[in-house]
């Protein structure tokens, strides 16, 4: 018998056992990273907590136990049965061909293990799917309505729109019958990039898209749900305490998929009502001359895609975008983020993030990849060839588009 040129086993596979354990260790340690704003192991609402405690953690432990068991068995087998001297040890071990009871045994064992996992799945499934029939009182246009907290979430390349219906509430069946995300019924509040929700309420999300498939995901509050055009998918989130919760589109949606982010701001009910009061109004009319000049520039150029309620809502035509829409800017200054959730509108000290806003107006493609092909529908904001004076005027105008002073939202999340 030739055994070829077999080199003596180096450290055998002992080390690979160590690797297995290390891999498992870091898996468990994953939850410990503290600076990770998208961390799935740091749930911050009742839905995500229940999901985590029922569906995620127990299964991770089961998997860990199985992995450790198999690893130990493997390391032991390797250590016990390895041939130490290839030249002298030429024995043949006894030739066992199998052992049916043993094999049936571990088939059943695996079956029972998976049955346990299945039970955990069935136990945790309702946490993400069931919907409470909760209502909260919201004042809108001077009257109080029982709002069934619902936000229609619409994906676009590459930003999110959030639509609030208070006075004329929509539900899932109605939207499904209506069918088209491009012509949704007019809403009381339309905002983008940043969704505002009240704490302590289960918020039903109705997720859809105007162009390709996106996925809405705020890891701290719940798992994700795809935004599929021609479909309206129910989802829900709930935050326990005020705060800013981050998300990232997770379904590949084209060029700037990585730059399609979103935030959810949870406010306590009083702050939420204040936000509703401010945001359901028409846009603030500018007073200072520069902002007025900006309004003129805006009306001349930007309104071909963007809406500012009170300025062009009645003359608005569909945006020259594949999705047929661009962010509604009525309360631009009320939000703390812009350009699909990738830039902060305000600096840490509360002042306007003028540098980035100006750079964005100068040439958006430089900050966020997009498809701008002349003669075709745009996907993303084109370069408008604005001169510096126009940019300054536009910034002045945009900075005034909000009923509350800049940055109040961030402050509100930090009250608690």
């Amino acid at each position, binding site marked *: 018998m030739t055994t070829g040129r077999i080199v003596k086993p180096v450290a055998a596979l002992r080390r690979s056992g160590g690797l297995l354990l290390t891999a498992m260790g870091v898996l468990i340690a994953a939850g410990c990273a503290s600076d990770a704003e998208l961390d*799935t192991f740091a749930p911050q609402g009742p839905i995500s907590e229940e999901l985590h405690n029922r569906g995620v953690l127990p299964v991770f432990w089961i998997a860990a136990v199985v992995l450790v068991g198999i690893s130990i068995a493997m390391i032991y087998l390797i250590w016990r049965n390895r041939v130490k001297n290839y030249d002298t040890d030429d024995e043949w071990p006894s030739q066992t061909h199998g052992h049916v009871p043993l094999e049936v045994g571990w088939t059943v064992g695996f079956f029972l293990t998976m049955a346990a996992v299945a039970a955990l799945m069935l136990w945790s499934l309702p946490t993400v799917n069931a919907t409470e029939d909760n209502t909260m009182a919201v004042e809108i246009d001077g009257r109080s309505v029982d709002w069934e907290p619902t936000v229609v979430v619409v994906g676009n390349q590459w930003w999110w729109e959030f639509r609030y219906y208070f006075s004329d509430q929509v539900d899932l069946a109605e939207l499904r019958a209506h069918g088209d995300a491009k012509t949704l019924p007019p809403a009381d509040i339309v905002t983008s990039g940043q969704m505002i929700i009240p704490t302590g309420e289960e918020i039903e999300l109705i997720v859809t898209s105007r162009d390709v498939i996106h996925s809405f995901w705020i890891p701290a509050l719940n798992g994700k749900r795809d935004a599929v055009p021609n479909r309206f998918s129910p989802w829900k989130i709930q935050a326990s305490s005020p705060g800013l919760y981050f998300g990232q589109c997770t379904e590949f949606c084209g060029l700037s998929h990585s730059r399609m982010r979103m935030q959810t701001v949870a406010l306590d009910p009083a702050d939420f009502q204040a936000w509703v009061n401010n945001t359901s109004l028409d846009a603030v009319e500018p007073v200072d001359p520069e902002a007025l000049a900006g309004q003129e520039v805006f009306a001349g150029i930007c309104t071909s895609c963007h809406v500012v309620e009170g300025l062009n809502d009645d003359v608005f035509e569909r945006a020259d975008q594949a999705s047929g829409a661009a962010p509604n800017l009525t309360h631009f200054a009320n939000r703390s983020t812009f350009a699909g959730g990738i830039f902060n509108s305000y600096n840490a000290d509360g002042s306007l993030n003028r540098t980035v806003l100006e750079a964005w107006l100068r040439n958006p493609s430089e900050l966020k990849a997009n498809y701008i092909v002349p003669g075709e529908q745009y996907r993303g904001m084109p370069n408008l060839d604005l001169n510096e004076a126009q940019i300054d005027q536009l910034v002045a105008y945009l900075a005034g588009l909000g009923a509350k002073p800049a940055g109040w939202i961030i402050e509100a999340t930090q009250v608690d």
Partner: protein
Amino acid sequence: MAIVEKQPLELGTADTVSYAEKPLGVFTRPQGGRGWRDWLSTVDHKRIGILYGVSAMFFFLVGGVQALLIRLQLAVPDGSVLSADVYNQVYTMHGVTMVFLFIMPLAAAFANYFIPLQIGARDVAFPRLNALSFWVWLSGAIFLNTSWIVAGGGADCGWFCYAPNSGVAFSPSHGVDFYAIGLQILGLASLVSAVNLIVTCLNMRAPGMTLMRMPIFTWMLLITQFLLLFALPVITVALFLLMFDRVFDAQFFNVDAGADPLLWQHLFWIFGHPEVYIIVLPAFGVVSEVIPTFSRKPLFGYEFMVFSGIAIGFMGWGVWAHHMFVSGMGPISVAAFSLSTMFIAVPTGVKVLNWLATMWGGKIRFTVAMKFAVATVAMFTIGGLSGVTHSVAPANTQQTDTYYIVAHFHYVIFGGGVLGLFAGLYFWWPKIWGHFLSERVGNWHFWLTLVGFNLTFGPMHILGLQGMSRRIDSYARGYGFEFWNLTATIGSFLIAAATALFLWNVFKSRRDAPYLPPPGPDPWDARSLEWSVPSPVPVHNFDTVPQIRSRDDWWHTKYGEDSTGKVVQVATAQEAAQTGEATGVHLPSPSFWPLSVALGLPLIGYGLIFNLWFALIGALVTIGSLYSWALEPVDDPDAAHDDHDDHDDHDDGSNDRAVDNSDSNEATP
């Protein structure tokens, strides 16, 4: 690539060089034994296997370079190595290349080379169709990659290419056209090959080789071919719909006309999930050959291994929608697919424990092949278990489309598939080439691969659970992604270094081969029939077709048991092995037509994309070649030495007259 045959095997009659009139009069019938041209016309399953293997390794390097580009881009936040556009093309083509142009053809290489040898056959059922499979595959692979040159870039829609992002409106470049048509060409190759290998396994077994005596590797490949057989038409439908949408303005995925984008997802994953098993089952087969050989024990629970393989094959059809848990399906279907996904873990787990039980009480020799095989089991176990964690549908909503999934499927496909195939390369190298791969270099290759692999993909578990999305061309600072991404990039370069070592090993071992003892027919004291013939395998495989009396028949030829159950040698491998010196073995004649048929297909593809005239030319080439093929007898009448009667008509299976075969194929240095 250093994998070049040293001395071309001689096939057919070297002394009979006659050029008779041929159908259509384009080619003279190739006669074999004429250098490189012989490779173009070969119908020898071993040569086709080698062609598959060499091409697959080439595309492994291509896909590897793409992987390195991805990792370079993601090494630090706000990476600027690639633009978003190029990144999307690179990650798409990385997936497509690794799945369709590396792992599948490498498995096909093993399947082609070893299925006939393991079942005691002289070739596959349809040798020319086998050549066709390879050339069609290669033409598809080249077609797909020419998109970088002629279309200004590859597909940018991800290997899953979800509608409607794949439509002209959202992906106007021609990259997706190349994806849709290229994958159809590749699918055609796999379909032909699946039919061929299924018939081979079912019909060409040596006398006495019942299905339950078939080597486990062949079994796993047979299951794989059935999966291909049924999965490919489904993706073909999807690709046709996509192509019709893009080229002929059909409305399948036009959401404005009321189309449902989930149609694509269902069709894609009905193919795509069996595809996972298409990738790992061959590796499972390799591991199931390597572990018994180097543990010096038969495979523990052969029947359980076969039936768990079949069970995986069946259950693999009922789990596709677990890729779509967050797509908005109803809770009932979500629960059902979640359950079916969990229970496919049962046969898979059984396999892992049976491998361990094979090692139990064995005498384990840690050759490089064995190390790769054991590592395959270990790494696949990690991948399988992380799969269990996100088979739980609610948990899946947190984990899907994050790097946790990227980690998971790389542990399954790289850890379970590629490492297993590397085990096969080290195991069978002496059989294919007549010399060993260096164990010393191989050791370095193995450890570097294992460490690099875990360093690359281990951290991705953490990144995913920290919320890093898949398919993003860059990530911002401040999410805690920096450290582990850098680690993963370092790991990926270790894998690259390991691969370079492998290539060095290929070169070095070939260079050193003349100065080292040849491996002989059975260097590992192994169990299945391919070890009963000389290394490298003579062109006719078997001098005499063996009569099979038991499972592991070759091993039982060498060993028996005494009354106490102790193993005793009854014959040495050298004594029992065939000499490979038979003459007069009839073999199918080579043909240029398979290559010619394949050449037309990319032309049709270019035609559909750019100008229909190309398509017309391509169609003429392909149809003309098929016609000539049909008129060409399987066996060249001019190469026959005996007289022949009237049934040399081409369409029946009766014209097998024998050919003198002077085998000057002892390439042993």
